[in-house]
């Protein structure tokens, strides 16, 4: 909501033009012949033969995999590949045409059906890379482990070795070997190789739709060379992440608000491999209504994304389109959309019997086969004889067969031994790095930090909740939780030039909860901006941004909106570090605000959902001191952190840390719970804002019943160090684990189960979980019945641990009631 953009009622209500005009979207306009292209000097004969070679290589590669899946071997050498194989035979011209104009600075992202694309981009990279550089890449990759296998018995040129390396690395990855491009942890649907500009393929249809946009954002913000291509299927155009990613990439602000170098469109190209089918559904005529995927461009911006539909059965047509689109992106006129018509011969996967199409249809497309057709054109144009083409085929067949044999040989291509070394994969889940800055430039800021109005305001505040005389400080003068988060973030903005933050209102307003107040003055638009209301794009783009090497703080305004970016939070963000074989880092700190007061869709604590997913770190501080220290740690780290903040506590002062919140930089390591109050009769372990209600319960318990509660704040849920809790339970023998999440299926139960396990002999009563009711969150006026209250702690102590004399329970925590509620599903 920038003030500079005036919404004029005159223009808005009484526009001059009374219809929306769409630009025309070209369809199949390429008409040139091979001879034309040769005449124009666009290709040499060698270029054309390499295009043929690359297409054939993909075909033979996919044929090999298909034979392995369907006949259990290739050229008579048996192998069983239990993993997936989504093959792209038929789409070779589209893949090779896509890659032809790209260099290694240009990144491609793919789908589950991307073997062809990675081979095409890899082969192209090998062709254009200087030999020395290619050698260096191969020798440094896994310390030479991959190239050493590809080199076995080979004495040819570096470029030829490069081809062997590419094919071997890809097969080894598909067959889950440690010499594969991602140590076998990615597999068929996720194979990639960043030194060739090949970024992750994605097994979630459309997953790359927002990630690639984030990669383009990284290139733009960090002034990096190259464009980004997202290769998606026609079916993916139905997916939210694609549509949200396209929305994000279409933002007006790139042109209206971003300044200087940063002004202009994102260098991203959505490349639709329009192979006609989405699983068994037919996109044209059945499951979609766009007729052509290219039409979608018209919905996003006045340029209709410069969309075009091109003939993906002619590699030269695709190359022509890419040449023009790339030039456009380099002029900052992106984004762009290509709809590349192609056809997949194979089913969705080898288990697909193609029952949804006729043999005639497949035969008709095979008659148009892009490789045969291109071969004929080359012969007609006098570029090659059939014998030349046969020789190319024979050579590539031989190479693939050789690489196949090496990749299935357990001696040279071993798998990870996770049975013998069963911590190996566990140790790959996080990178656990400590990095001051991911940027190599001077951080771009608009003013010295000390001149910032927010910084000045904070300087006048008391950093502890009591003043020197022990009297409570007024809320206006008290350093609060949002100040703690702000200090950590602004510090990092001045340290790390790569850091960007965005979300649904992050700028002028200072964020919905005023945490970012003051950042607007400090940062240019490209480092802090408002995103569309598109959570999938907010997180998806952050993933792409981090994958390419940048640090990012995306914000999800309410915890309840996590579902809107479920795939990104659960399937993408946590997975890529391990799935890449630790090649990628994921320095993403997702700020998530946990609400209350606003009813059932704005008041839920979903920390448990995040703890369930391996690969995420989950933090939930509730004091200013912890917020600043944990945010500093999260931002210094290299792992994805979901950083929860409670809306109940933004205004709260520091009540625990002696001397208040330090002015300087400090880190609190993730994973360490903190004893907020010592006691000896019962332990309260809390998650989130429940801490303050637990403290109130501890007061009541002490005052009325002489029992002293030890109150521990979990602070971090993943990782979590149980040692302090065990020590406490050894002392007290009793523990209540409390938080605001609905109790059923929550992380509270996980803690309780582990504590029961680890402290069994020390327990005087079973650990008790005190969560919210398994209801919708009622309106604010009724919340006391829903969220754990101080009295509930006493209730369960009396009911389940040690009867309190003369105690009158406020709620029903009897076993009978517990069983009854479970029976009712509440």
């Amino acid at each position: 909501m920038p003030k500079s953009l005036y919404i004029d009622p005159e223009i808005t209500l009484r526009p001059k033009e009374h219809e929306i005009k769409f630009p025309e979207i070209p369809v199949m306009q390429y008409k040139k012949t091979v001879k034309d292209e040769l005449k124009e000097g666009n290709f040499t004969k060698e270029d054309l033969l390499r295009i043929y070679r690359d297409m054939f290589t993909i075909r033979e590669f996919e044929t090999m995999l298909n034979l392995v899946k369907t006949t259990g071997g290739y050229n008579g050498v048996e192998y069983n590949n239990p993993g997936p194989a989504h093959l792209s035979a038929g789409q070779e011209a589209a893949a090779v045409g896509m890659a032809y104009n790209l260099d290694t600075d240009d990144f491609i992202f793919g789908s589950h059906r991307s073997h062809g694309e990675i081979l095409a981009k890899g082969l192209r990279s090998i062709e254009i890379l200087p030999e020395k550089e290619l050698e260096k890449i191969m020798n440094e990759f896994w310390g030479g482990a991959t190239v050493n296998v590809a080199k076995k018995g080979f004495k040819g040129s570096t470029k030829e070795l490069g081809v062997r390396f590419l094919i071997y690395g890809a097969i080894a990855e598909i067959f889950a070997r440690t010499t594969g491009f991602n140590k076998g942890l990615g597999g068929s649907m996720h194979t990639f190789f960043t030194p060739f500009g090949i970024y992750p393929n994605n097994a979630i249809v459309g997953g790359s739709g927002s990630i690639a946009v984030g990669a383009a954002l990284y290139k733009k913000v960090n002034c990096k060379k190259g464009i980004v291509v997202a290769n998606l299927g026609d079916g993916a155009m139905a997916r939210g992440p694609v549509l949200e990613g396209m929305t994000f990439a279409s933002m007006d602000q790139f042109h209206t608000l971003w300044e200087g170098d940063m002004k202009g469109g994102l260098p991203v190209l959505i490349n639709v491999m329009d192979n006609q089918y989405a699983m068994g559904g037919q996109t044209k005529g059945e499951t979609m209504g766009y007729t052509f995927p290219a039409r979608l461009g018209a919905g996003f911006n006045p340029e209709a994304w410069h969309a075009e539909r091109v003939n993906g059965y002619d590699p030269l047509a695709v190359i022509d389109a890419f040449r023009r689109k790339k030039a456009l992106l380099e002029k900052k006129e992106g984004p762009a959309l290509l709809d590349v018509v192609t056809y997949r011969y194979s089913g969705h996967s080898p288990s697909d019997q193609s029952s949804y199409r006729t043999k005639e249809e497949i035969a008709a497309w095979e008659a148009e086969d892009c490789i045969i057709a291109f071969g004929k054109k080359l012969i007609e144009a006098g570029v090659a004889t059939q014998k030349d083409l046969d020789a190319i085929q024979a050579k590539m067949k031989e190479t693939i067969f050789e690489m196949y044999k090496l990749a299935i040989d357990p001696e040279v291509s071993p798998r990870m031994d996770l049975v013998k070394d069963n911590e190996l994969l566990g140790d790959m889940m996080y990178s656990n790095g400590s990095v001051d800055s991911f940027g190599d430039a001077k951080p771009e800021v608009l003013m010295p930090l000390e001149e910032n109005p927010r910084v000045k305001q904070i300087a006048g505040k008391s950093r502890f909740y009591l003043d020197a005389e022990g009297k409570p400080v007024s809320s206006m003068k008290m350093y609060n939780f949002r100040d703690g988060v702000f200090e950590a973030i602004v510090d990092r903005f001045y340290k790390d030039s790569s850091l960007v933050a965005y979300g649904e209102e992050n700028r002028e307003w200072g964020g919905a909860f005023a945490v970012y107040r003051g950042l607007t003055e400090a940062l240019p638009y490209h480092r802090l901006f408002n995103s569309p209301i598109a959570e999938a794009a907010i997180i998806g783009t952050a993933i792409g941004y981090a994958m390419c090497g940048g640090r990012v703080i995306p914000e999800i305004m309410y915890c309840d909106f996590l579902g809107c970016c479920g795939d990104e939070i659960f399937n993408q963000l946590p997975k890529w570090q391990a799935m890449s074989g630790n090649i990628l880092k994921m320095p993403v700190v997702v700020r998530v605000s946990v609400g209350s007061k606003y009813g059932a869709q704005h008041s839920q604590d979903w920390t448990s959902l995040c703890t369930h997913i391996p690969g995420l770190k989950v933090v939930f501080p509730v004091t200013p001191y912890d917020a600043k220290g944990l945010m500093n740690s999260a931002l210094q780290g290299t792992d994805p952190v979901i950083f929860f903040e409670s809306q109940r506590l933004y205004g709260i002062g520091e009540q625990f840390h002696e001397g208040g919140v330090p002015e300087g930089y400090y880190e609190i390591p993730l994973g360490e719970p903190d004893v907020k109050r010592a006691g000896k009769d019962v332990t309260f372990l809390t998650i989130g804002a429940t801490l303050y209600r637990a403290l109130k319960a501890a007061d009541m318990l002490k005052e009325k019943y002489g029992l002293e509660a030890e109150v521990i704040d979990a602070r971090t849920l993943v990782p979590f160090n149980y040692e302090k809790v065990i020590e406490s339970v050894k002392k007290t023998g009793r523990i209540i684990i409390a938080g605001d999440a609905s109790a059923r299926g929550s992380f509270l139960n996980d803690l309780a189960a582990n504590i029961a396990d680890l402290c069994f002999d020390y327990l005087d009563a079973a650990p008790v979980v005190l969560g919210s009711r398994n209801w919708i969150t009622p309106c604010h006026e009724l919340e006391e019945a829903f969220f754990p209250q101080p009295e509930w702690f006493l209730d369960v102590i009396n009911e389940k641990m040690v009867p309190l004399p003369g105690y009158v329970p406020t709620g029903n925590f009897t076993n009978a009631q517990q069983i009854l509620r479970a029976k009712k599903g509440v």
Partner: protein
Amino acid sequence: MAQVVIMPKQGQSVESCIVSEFKKKVGDSVKVGDILFGYETDKATFEEESQVEGTVLAIFYKDGDEIPVLSNVMVIGQPGESFAEFAPSAASNDAGKGAAGGTEPSETHATFGTVRGGTVSAANGGVERSETVSEGSSPSAAAIPGAPASPRARKLAEEKGVNLDTVAGSGPGGRIIERDVLAAAVPLTGLAKAKMAEGGLVAGAGSGLAGTVKGGDLKTWKPNHTDIPGEGTEFETVKMSNMRKLIAKSMYNSLQNSAQLTHMLGADARKIQALRKKAKKALEEGKIDANITINDFVCFAVIKALQKFPNVNSHCLGDAMRLFKAVNLGCAVDTERGLMVPVIKGADALDIISLSKELKKAADACKKGSFNPDLLAAEAGSFTVSNLGGYGVEWFTPIINVPQSAILGVGTLVPRPKLNAEGQYEFVPYLGLSLTYDHRAIDGGEATRFLKQVATEIETLEVEF
């Protein structure tokens, strides 16, 4: 001025002793060196000699009482002197853990909300968590056998020797919780605790000071076996003595928890026989003052061998080894009370005469039951020698005194044919050596080399006296 006689502390692990018999009664006159009373631990018996001269003014216990160590036992002085101030009930004698002084254990009567943590600690006697008292009302009166108990309560009951069947639960649904066990854990004497820990016994009403449960108060011995017909007519069931049970436990434990096997080897005994002759002569001639036996020479040779094999002079802890710098030699002694293994600490520093004397002294003390109990523990020794030669046993398989790594059994002398230098067989006295070792600690090769070394030392022993 009247002198008080206290119960001595015999060893680190001893908490109390039982007075077997008072040799003096009130009014008797006493000289220095007179035996005042005999007393025993579960491992040994002792006699307390008077350090002073005078008249017995007071005796605070009777025969058979278990007395916490360092407690006042009797007073000796001049007739007419005051002694009441020495009475244990008047003194705030809290030296004996588990036997707190004067005040009643009163936590069950503590009124809720009025008791602040700390003020009741003295009343609890041995209860570390006095604060738990403040938690609640009096536990309900009835103890229900088989009532549920929290894991923490179970653990504590085991530690405190409390039978949960006798405890009334005050937790939710009558569950026995920690505080109930604490309330039920009446103070026990050391002996009572040790007996309880072995199981089968429950505390009866404490007859000791402040309700302390003594060994004699323990009730209901539940035999550990199945009854068969014929009791009384065909056979008699006799409870094992405490010492017997201890031996049984440690021998069983040894065989259960280590990997032992025995190697046997003979040693030409002519050399030590000659030495024995020489020593006898030297004793008769008054050149030495010790009767050095064949066993002493064997022990001396063993010590020399151990110095060359530090791995054998060790404890095996399963995942670690204790390698001893000195040789702490255990020597099995058969006594009326049962097998005892006194340890000679630092035996490698002794010459043959001192070693002989120490071994004799230890054996005598064991037979009398007055050996320091701390030196009877298996942990005190680094290696043990057991000699059955005197009984004509040729070979045997001694059981390791765990955690020690090995034990050497010494058999009798047996004449065996041996080729002499002339190629003729002659009969030579051979000493049977049986080395049992823990294969977890030592491999067969090393064990054999060590045993051979013992034999070599025996065959080549040189001793000057």
